[in-house]
């Protein structure tokens, strides 16, 4: 995946270090502190004495916006107020846009008194970038989206000689600050391979200094190799955090670690631990289609996981991956005694050796016969590719030898037909 969100803290730090190259008048205070449950608050304050001497802002830095509306924004606060806010909010579970998650990171920065809030963002399109600007920044920008001016910047434009002023409305006194700031910001955006950057709002202080207040940004993580001297430093790369509320279970972490060790791909996300339909699908494209079809045929609520294995993983890794999914599906047999279904699916592989990967899956099945029977798991297999005949034969054999119900289909059966077969089995009352 190319576009990845970064923390507001990191975005501001990146702007602070890079923007003055293009806009030397940018004199950012660079006073930013992250407080998490590990932080020694008193120590943080003594290391950042401005917290004590200035008024501060405190807000969560966990990739979600609309913090003011969610009552998670502390403005113009004293040091004690900041401490109270931290104590009462850190590790607190709250719900943001239907996602429940714990507040883990709070960003503290100086409170900047200001009258006017400006909006600027930059987005990318196929043939160019877009600069979006508005005088009506802040929380009302979405309601006032018609007031936002969109300036297309064709790819390869030399922004320094680009006539930005004529594309924007009369900026009044602020033009001397705004034009070079936006141009500098655009250069930063291009040179650092941002894919999205939104400063909403930013303020202009009495001494004509621009101060970004809230920042949201995404970087193109595939460009990391080009930025070893800034955010892509291999010894200290920027963090690409998971979305708010997304935590990983032990098994998911285990598979991710496995994935990092191999050139092949192993992915797992548990959606519903007590779900009755689980998938172990080869290939990213096929895994999406199986998941779609399970949902489209009405099993969305029963879907246990999303994941895929691909890139010709070794027999051993495939076995570990299969064992993990088998452990998950058999963990809690259905309280009502209904059947569970495991789809070992995939399209016709280009080069992944079906026999070798299936050997791994088969030994996981052999190691789990009692569990599978106890949880009433029925397995549906569909696959094609190199050594498909031998691979599918292995599956048939393990079914016959162990008594685990396994139905095996080859390339002549439509890829997702097994989902329809599960539907029919369900309608007939399971196994």
């Amino acid at each position, binding site marked *: *995946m*190319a*576009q990845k969100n970064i923390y507001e803290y990191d975005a501001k730090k990146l702007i602070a270090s890079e923007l003055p190259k293009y806009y030397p008048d940018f004199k950012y205070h660079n006073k930013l502190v992250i407080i998490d449950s590990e932080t020694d608050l008193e120590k943080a304050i003594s290391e950042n004495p401005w917290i004590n001497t200035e008024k501060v802002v405190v807000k969560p830095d966990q990739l979600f916006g609309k913090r003011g509306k969610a009552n998670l924004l502390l403005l113009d606060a004293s040091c004690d107020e900041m401490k109270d806010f931290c104590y009462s909010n850190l590790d607190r579970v709250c719900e943001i*846009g239907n*996602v429940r998650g714990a507040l883990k990171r709070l960003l503290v920065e100086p409170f900047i008194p200001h009258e006017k809030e400006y909006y600027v963002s930059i987005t*990318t399109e*196929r*043939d160019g970038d877009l600069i979006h600007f508005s005088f009506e920044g802040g929380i009302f920008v979405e309601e006032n989206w018609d007031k936002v001016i969109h300036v297309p910047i064709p*790819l*390869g434009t030399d922004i320094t000689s680009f006539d930005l002023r004529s594309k924007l409305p009369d900026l009044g006194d602020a033009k001397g600050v705004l034009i070079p700031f936006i141009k500098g910001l655009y250069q930063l955006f*291009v040179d650092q*391979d941002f*894919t999205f950057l939104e400063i909403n709002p930013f303020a202009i202080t009495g001494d004509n200094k621009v101060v970004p207040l809230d920042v949201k940004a995404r970087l*193109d993580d*595939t*460009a990391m*190799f*080009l930025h070893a001297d800034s955010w892509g430093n291999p010894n200290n790369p920027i963090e690409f955090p*998971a*979305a708010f*509320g*997304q935590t990983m279970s032990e098994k998911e972490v285990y598979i991710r670690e496995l994935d990092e060790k191999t050139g092949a791909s192993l*992915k797992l*996300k548990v*959606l519903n631990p007590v779900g009755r339909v689980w998938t172990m699908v080869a*290939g*990213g*494209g*096929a*895994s*999406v*289609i199986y*998941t*779609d*079809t*399970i*949902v*489209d*045929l009405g099993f*969305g609520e029963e*879907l246990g996981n*999303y994941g895929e294995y*691909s890139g010709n993983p070794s027999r051993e890794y495939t076995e570990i991956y299969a064992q993990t999914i088998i452990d998950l599906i058999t963990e809690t047999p259905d309280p009502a005694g209904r059947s569970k279904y495991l789809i070992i699916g995939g*399209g*016709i*592989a*280009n*080069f992944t050796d079906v026999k070798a990967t299936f050997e791994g899956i088969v030994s996981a099945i052999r190691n789990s016969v009692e569990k599978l029977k106890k949880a009433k798991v029925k397995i549906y297999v569909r696959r*094609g*590719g*190199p050594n498909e005949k031998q691979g599918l034969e292995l599956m048939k054999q393990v079914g016959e030898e162990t008594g685990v119900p396994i139905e095996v289909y080859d*390339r*002549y059966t*439509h*890829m*997702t*037909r097994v*989902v*329809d077969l599960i539907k029919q089995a369900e309608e007939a009352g399971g196994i």
Partner: protein
Amino acid sequence: MVDYELFNRNTQAIIYGFQRNPIQRMLDFDFVSKREKNSVAAIIKPTQTAAISYHNVFFGNKEIVIPIYKTLDLATKKHPNADVMINFASFRSSYETSKEALESNTIRTVIIIAEGIPERQSRKLIKIAEERKKNIIGPATVGGIVAGAFKIGNTAGTLENITLSKLYRPGSVGFVSKSGGLSNEMNFMISQTTDGVYEGIAIGGDRFPGSKLIDHLMRYEANPKIKMLVALGEIGGTDEYAIVEALKNKKITKPIVVWVTGTAAKILPKGLQFGHAGAMADSSKETADAKNRALREAGAIVPESYEDFDKEIRKTFDKLKQEGIIQPVEDFEPPAIPMDYNTAVRLGKVRRPTDVVVTISDDRGDVPTFAGIGLDTIIKDKKSIGYVIGLLWFKRELPEFAQEFIEIVIKLTADHGPAVSGAHNAIITARAGKDLMSSLASGILTIGPRFGGAISNAAKYFREALQKGMNPLEFMGYMKNVVQINIPGIGHRIKSVQNPDVRVQLLKEFVLNNFEKHPHLDYALEVEKLTTSKRNNLILNVDGCVGITFLDLLENLDFTKEEIEDVIHSEALNGLFVLGRSIGMMGHVFDQKRQRAGLYRQPWDEILFTD
């Protein structure tokens, strides 16, 4: 070539990156498709030193070569008709190499295989392509195929799959998808539900693919041989709306069956990576459901779920066939490709006799073995050089006295001063500025009947004498009257009975003390008694002693008579001398090189000039 075609049966490609397997797979496809010319014109390997080298591949049964160039520039000059470049360069260098190809005058289409190219770089490439009216497929793709005409790299997998999916001849369906991983599945499914694929392209899963679904669909629309379109879209982005527009504007008139994947995203947690890089819905318009709906409303054939995709494709095809729009396709049995030798070996389908039999060592395992003994054991157990020689020369673990004997001989023969022919030659060659190997070789080359020959000759004649049962006196007569040479191994320039050679004494002593039996030495000492009675310097010399005691060594080992014959016949004795003396000759070479000694020229006063 017409505009709507990127590839046909005459298309030739330049492959960037030395990719043996995809190249052979392309040629195998060419062969089963009965192409006249193979589809790979040239290979670019920037890391090679030579401007041009060659790679041999099979075109059916025939072996042919494909030139490998160091630069694209030279390749395009030599192959102006190759208008496709398949770029296997990594994500780090793909931008530069793709740019170079797009900016060349001969390359019309660039396929970018690498995954993980920065978006801004992809967008710059797209801009260049648009300005120069070039085509890009990818990045992050396996490529595509025009059935029976041209196959990009690894597309369509194994030959078996190509045959099963009937990709060796054109059908009537133009197919395009984002996913390359699913292209095999789709090609096969289309071959089962229709008369097969005419062209199938995977544009790659990036947010900014070099060419879009619509670009290929418009080409298919323009291609009279394509009768129906199949497309597989994906959640995220708005490219599918271009298809909606084209349908509304009647720019697409051929029947099109489409499915946009990612309908399940609505029940998945936000932010979960679901499929490709581009597969993330930023707005409700970008969801799979919205796109499927819009496509259906615009007149595309959109199933209720992927589960019915095959049925809709079959239905659409059958209708076109009924209407007479599609004529039966001409099928043929694709020519068989011989199995690769390596594959056949793996499957146990072939056998061939070997050309070389080796019985002394094996380097195939974790640790090399000498006569079955692991090198690690040899080192750990601190085995001697004599032991190693025993393993490699005689295939045995020699007893300690034998190991020691061999080492004594090596020491004794290691050097004999600078004046003997071997050292002299080595010195002269080294001083002529030649390398170690040449200098050593020129020294070794003097070893023969006169230099070092006394050792093997002594062994030869004393052995013969003993075998024929001659007494020492008969032997002396035989040498004098029949062979007509002095007895090899007898006589010394300076040393005599009164002034014995300490080297001979030490060797004799060792043999007498350590060998259970020593018939040859005993015999030689009898002969020596007679010769020294004639003249006191006709003693057993060091060459003779080495040769003769080596025969005794063989008598004391568990060798059969025949094995002893083999050892002598194989010149093991010469081997010992060469081995030992090489130490000294190399020493002389190093000595001269250390001194930076200049070219040696024999002084005139050493030469008599005369006619």
